[in-house]
């Protein structure tokens, strides 16, 4: 069946071994006028090398200050079906497990109410329903809440949809229950998620261990990363099995074949803190020097496991470059136990938000505020004690803001006495 718009350029993207979104949308298009016009506008963009979407304006559902991204085509004359093309961010279930039942229901619901296109998932983690009109928003929201038990995710100067790695659900290394934590935070802070109350967006992401499979350290204002503070558990027999070539090193990640394994070259010498020793029979780890980089564990997963005194390192401030340049999150709590109901953590979070809301400028992310007012001010506001673990290096410039409280007489000079001692 011929589609409304010829798409010679897009058609080139049907070739090749990687799944083609063009083939997919073309398959959908006969059922969806929006898909047809979307293919048209994409083809136009491919020809002109310019996008054809305008700013959003304020669209949303009643009582929510986020969750919908308004979008209008700048050529409604050519593509009337997508004159409106808003996206709906639906809060995904933590770690994105689904039953086919819930997915089918979602598809059935989305088909009549929008383009039938989605992003599985958005970069933040939401289920993104891509393209609908303003008049569909309220009914869609009604159906989502009533029929699916689902709710919108975040957008705007809100808490954004939290997300975690799959954690204990399928990973042997997880030191915290990422799903429970993410779900708990999402539920506890529904109001912050749906109603703009912050200077700008705020993101939580939780990874179960330092591998950081949800990239928390790079892209969340508050990054929660599982870790342990006791000893790596060692199964010496399994170590010997790796050395003997009986087990595939690195769980097959570097080739699933069994192969000779030089534990010195592949583990001991690579350990960043050089805190390991292999005497030919037993592996010794000086855990007090280990920085829990996961390398030895990931290379010999059947022999080594994280410790049992688990918790999380809390880091803050990651963000993309706009305005002050990209930041990664920085350690502010080296270790915190992470068990429901996460009271200590939430107390911390609320102190962070209070400080940010009080001091943050419009569109100033937490990381930028810390840059502007200093990590010291942040720590003070959150009742945290400075710790060498918070820095890679102490300062190397001498521009120290000494606390007047620690200086005899504070900031005051006795000018008269000074001039008695020193003639001008």
């Amino acid at each position, binding site marked *: 069946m011929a589609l409304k718009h010829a798409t010679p350029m*897009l058609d080139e*993207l049907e*070739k*090749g071994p*990687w*799944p*083609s*979104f063009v083939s*997919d*949308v073309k*398959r959908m298009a006969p059922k969806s006028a929006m*898909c047809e016009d979307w293919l048209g506008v994409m083809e136009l*963009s*491919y020809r*002109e090398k*310019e*996008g054809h979407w305008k*700013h959003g304006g304020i669209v949303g559902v009643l009582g929510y200050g986020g969750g919908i991204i308004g979008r209008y085509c700048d050529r409604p004359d050519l593509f009337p079906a997508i004159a409106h093309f808003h*996206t709906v961010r639906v809060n995904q*279930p933590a770690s*994105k*497990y*689904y*039953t*086919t039942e*819930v997915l*089918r229901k979602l598809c059935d619901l989305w088909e009549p109410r929008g383009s*039938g296109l989605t992003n*599985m*998932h958005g*970069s933040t983690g939401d289920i993104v329903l891509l*393209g609908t009109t303003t008049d569909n928003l309220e009914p869609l929201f009604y159906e989502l*809440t009533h029929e699916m038990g689902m*709710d919108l995710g975040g957008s705007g100067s809100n808490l954004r949809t939290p997300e975690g790695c799959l954690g204990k*659900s*399928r990973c*042997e290394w997880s030191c915290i229950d990422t799903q429970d934590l993410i*779900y708990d935070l999402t539920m506890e802070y529904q109001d912050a998620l*749906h109603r703009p109350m912050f200077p700008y967006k705020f993101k939580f992401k939780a990874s179960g261990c*330092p591998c950081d499979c*949800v*990239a928390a*350290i*790079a892209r969340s204002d508050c990054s929660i990363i599982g870790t342990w503070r006791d000893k790596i558990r060692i199964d010496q027999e399994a170590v010997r099995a790796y050395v003997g070539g009986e087990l595939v090193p690195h*769980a*097959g*990640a*570097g080739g*699933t074949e069994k192969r000779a394994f030089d534990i010195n070259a592949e583990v001991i010498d*690579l350990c960043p803190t050089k805190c390991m020793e292999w005497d030919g029979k037993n592996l010794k780890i000086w855990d007090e020097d280990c920085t829990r*980089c*996961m390398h030895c564990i990931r*290379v010999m997963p059947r022999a080594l496991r994280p410790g049992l005194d688990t918790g999380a390192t809390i880091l803050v401030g990651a963000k*993309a*470059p*706009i305005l002050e340049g*990209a930041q*990664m999150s920085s350690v502010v709590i080296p270790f915190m136990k992470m068990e429901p109901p996460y009271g200590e953590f939430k107390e911390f979070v609320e102190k962070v938000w209070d400080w940010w809301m009080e001091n943050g400028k*419009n*569109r100033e992310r937490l990381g930028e505020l810390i840059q502007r007012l200093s990590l010291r001010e942040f720590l003070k506001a959150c009742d945290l004690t400075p710790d060498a673990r918070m820095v890679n290096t102490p300062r190397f410039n001498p521009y120290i803001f000494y606390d007047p409280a620690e200086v005899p007489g504070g900031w005051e000079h006795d000018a008269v006495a000074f001039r008695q001692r020193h003639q001008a």
Partner: protein
Amino acid sequence: MAFDPNNLMQDRITDIGPPKYDKFFPPIVKENFGKWKYHEILEPGVLVHVSETGAELYTVRVGASRLISIELIREVCDIADKYCDGYLRWTTRNNIEFLVSDKSKLQPLIDDLRSRGNWFPIGGTGNSITSIVHTQGWAHCHTPAIDASGVVKSVMDELFEYFGSHKLPAQVRIALACCLNMCGAVHCSDIAILGVHRKPPFIEHDRVQNVCEIPLVIAACPTAAIKPKKVDDKKSVEINQSRCMFCGNCYTMCPALPLADGEGDGMALWVGGKVSNVLSAPMFSKLAVPYIPNEPPRWPTTVNTIKRIVEEYAAGGRRYERIGDWINRIGWERFFEKTGLEFKHEHIDDYRLAMMTWRTTTQFKF
């Protein structure tokens, strides 16, 4: 009660949040939650996780275009119903994972997936190149300098051999963001593709005071290039073009400052970032190629350049070395030499922390 457009408050449900995650856990996950003992990759794309209870969960990971239709989701559901008791998940990088608790269904699932043309490539585990994290591009956003999905498709087609194999020294994570907002969080990727504008915005003085809040526009500029200005009695702004670095943040605040331009826009390539704390600490991605023009529909220059980088890394990287670790070992002077990329003035930082990137030692290679 049904939805009533004239009474939105009727029966309204709000703030219920997402469904609780464990509603969708397969029984084996519920039972073995927190008890997993080890895992193994059986072949690229196929994992087994073994529990302390002895239970084994098989996962088959397939590459997915992140922009997918409900037709495709339904097809995925058909497959999951057939082999996975209806359970599946998406990964943090937008791949689909079929969760198999009955080992006898593993091979049939794999065979089925392979039989469906290019819809469900199996791979993305271990030292592979897995799906490219990306953003909207021309598909939906208002500020992109490039498309997203088409570039991703073109690059993955070319790198496909690395998706279904473990032959790289370590994993290679590629990300794409279509503008400097970097929704793809490309700033910590082994290889990053970033849409860039190269012309300062032009100013539609007639519209500015109607559609923009001028103080917000001024505050939006990272380099303070924007000042208020009256033009024929209308409140507007002026832009010091030589201070503009084309970030588009003012345009986000003000539609009367468009900067997209078919000939000016294109992409920059970045390398050597990472997120994990394994071996080395997380690293930012660093500029490799300042500019490549938009070349739809297949972006050959971008594709070939990335391929070249990957191949040099594949040849020179040592086991466990991420691209950034490899470059740190051989040095940037060698990276540019080996890849044949040109080192240009754009590579030298000139933003706020620039000084920290200069070479303050005589240690370098000739």
